[in-house]
């Protein structure tokens, strides 16, 4: 177990987009605790998604971005690795298996439901058919979409509803047994029923892994998360337990944002 149940630790982290003069994130310090849900809230442009994407180095799909500081990923044996030191494409793939990402818009691949989930598993070297089938079923069950899909695994994933597609994407990420799952506004494109299903799923997933979620929905942050980080203009303005942030925030800025008296 990593120290203080930390799974990740962001230390003095700054990030500057390629071609930008000023950093978008400045000296961020944020712990990510094991088997907890951490919500990131804040107005548009405050750097929530930028920080989330830095946590699994998705920014590296484009060159020229500048990182400073550390983002440590703790191993089960207590050792840590600064993911900002990763350079090779293979290391990035391995990182993204350990730190998965779910996007705002569901992104199923144009292939069958089964192949969507099996894709990452095959990439990670699993070739045995029965093992693949077992892992796919388990992942679909874990993402609470098995009952709806078990009789149509060979059908195109594009035929699923938005909520089902999002759960399929979660299944695809869960299949790789990640240690951290990052959610970037995962329900903003979904109706309340699908949103409820995804939220229920996220709370169940935290038994197995740690979650960081970016959301504009204050109610979602309050009812889902254990810890909340409020970001403003590229700074981490306040971080605490969700109960503290939503009941007795330390800073007026946080209170104004949460109560809608902002600006």
């Amino acid at each position, binding site marked *: 177990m990593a120290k203080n149940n930390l799974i990740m630790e962001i230390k003095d982290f700054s990030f500057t987009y390629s071609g930008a003069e000023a950093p978008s994130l400045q000296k961020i310090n944020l712990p990510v605790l094991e088997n907890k849900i951490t919500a990131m809230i804040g107005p548009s442009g405050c750097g929530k998604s930028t920080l989330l994407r830095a946590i699994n180095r998705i920014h590296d799909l484009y060159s020229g971005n500048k990182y400073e500081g550390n983002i440590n990923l703790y191993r089960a044996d207590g050792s840590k690795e600064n993911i900002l030191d990763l350079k090779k494409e293979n290391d990035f793939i391995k990182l993204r298996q350990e730190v998965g990402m779910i996007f705002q818009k569901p992104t199923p691949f144009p292939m069958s439901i089964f192949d969507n989930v099996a894709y990452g598993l095959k990439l990670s070297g699993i070739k045995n058919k029965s093992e693949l089938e077992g892992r796919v079923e388990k992942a679909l069950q874990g993402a609470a979409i098995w009952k709806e899909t078990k009789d149509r695994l060979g059908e195109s994933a594009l035929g699923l509803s938005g909520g089902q597609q999002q759960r399929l994407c979660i299944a695809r990420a869960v299949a790789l047994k990640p240690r951290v799952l990052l959610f970037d506004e995962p329900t903003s494109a979904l109706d309340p029923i699908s949103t*409820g299903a995804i*939220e*229920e799923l996220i*709370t169940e997933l935290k038994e197995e892994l740690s979650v960081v979620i970016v959301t504009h929905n204050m*109610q979602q942050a*309050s*009812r*889902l998360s254990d810890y909340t980080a409020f970001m403003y203009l590229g700074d981490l303005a306040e971080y605490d337990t*969700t*109960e503290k942030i*939503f*009941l007795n925030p330390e800073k007026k800025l946080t209170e104004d944002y949460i109560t809608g008296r902002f600006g």
Partner: protein
Amino acid sequence: MLHINEEKLQEVRDRTSEILKDLTISQKLALQALETCDSKSFEQVKIPLKMINKNVEDIDNLILTIFALYNPEAKDLREMVAFLKITSSLQRIASNERNYIKNMGICNPDTSAEVKEIINTSLSINRCTIKALEYTIEMIHEIEDKDKLQELASRISVEYSKTDDIYSMIEKDVLNIMHKSHTVTEEYMNLLKYIRKNLKIIDRLEDISARLLFARIGGRL
């Protein structure tokens, strides 16, 4: 609603029910003590009441957290507002119970036979209160069955009406005694005052049942 939110709501119900159970135990102990006019047993009556203020504060804070984190709506919102009012009533019931038992220290081996008889008659009020408390606990746990809720609420109302009648009879008896002796005795007047205090408990239980009907069925607070 998330599973965890349901659990929090259930925790509020369970904790409230625990307080009502403590109040019931206290009422039963008071009844026993007064049946034997044993002032030493009165001390035991206060034991279940000791933690009530703290337990009520805990429930209020839990409700505050539910408001802040889970944004209850419709029946969940009604229930949380109702329980905030219910906890306040529970605190007052505990306070009435404490005052009642303190004042009923007048019931001791040296008490006159007439006063003992009046106290004995008044114990029917305590029995009604115990029944009303048990019905209230049942109401707390009855979430869906609206007919059952209405039935329990009317049973509480019946117990309340009974206590009203019993008190009128006691009042009449006391006035008769004073009339016969041609004096207004302070001891009797105080006794009536203490019994009236006990009546307030069941009055508040009727309030609680109305709040529970609002929570589960709807309408206006």
